[in-house]
């Protein structure tokens, strides 16, 4: 039996395919973000008081990595852990594309 090299290559692709974010799709998904990240100089009050980070203009891959870290429990903010656990990989990629791309548009 002869296996086509092309088919073999195609079979490998999905494993390496990254979730591609769609900034437009994020507009229906960021209602949980804007209450804190959409307000200039907004501060968290629990469990510690500090300024919520600016995320517009941030590197998209870093935004995804941060959300994954909250979901996995490697970062500890309770609100962010709860929100990250409610997001799919596609949601995270879409939000990263939206906030990351916002930086490029502003420059």
């Amino acid at each position: 039996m002869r296996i086509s090299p092309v088919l073999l290559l195609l079979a490998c692709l999905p494993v390496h395919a990254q979730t591609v974010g769609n900034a437009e799709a994020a507009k229906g998904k960021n209602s949980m973000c804007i209450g804190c990240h959409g307000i200039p100089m907004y501060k968290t009050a629990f469990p510690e008081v500090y300024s919520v980070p600016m995320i517009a203009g941030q590197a998209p891959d870093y935004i995804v990595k941060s959300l994954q870290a909250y979901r996995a429990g490697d970062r500890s903010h309770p609100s962010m852990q709860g929100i990250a656990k409610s997001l799919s990989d596609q949601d995270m990629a879409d939000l990263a594309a939206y906030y990351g791309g916002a930086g490029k548009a502003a420059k």
Partner: protein
Amino acid sequence: MTRFLVVVLACFSAQAFAAGDADSGKLKSQACAACHGPDGNSPTGPDFPRLAGQHYDYLLKALRDYRSGARRNPIMGAQVGSLGSQDLADLAAFYSRQKGSLHVVR
């Protein structure tokens, strides 16, 4: 009364100690520049964050959490593990004062 004054003064000195010095932070930022870029706005890898212009108190919290292990990241944990509290404050002061693309959108 004296005891009260001592307590009040102690609070002030603790705050003074926590304030970061951006010039000192710049001198201490050479190791950071390898990944975050010299100004903190030009990271060298796709998943390294921009730091330039980020809020001082957020940067300081992130550094403290890396150091304490509350935020688990092998690279950053190793980088800040040997730094003192003043170092962290200086670095946060330096990066928060650099110009960058971070901003707020809804």
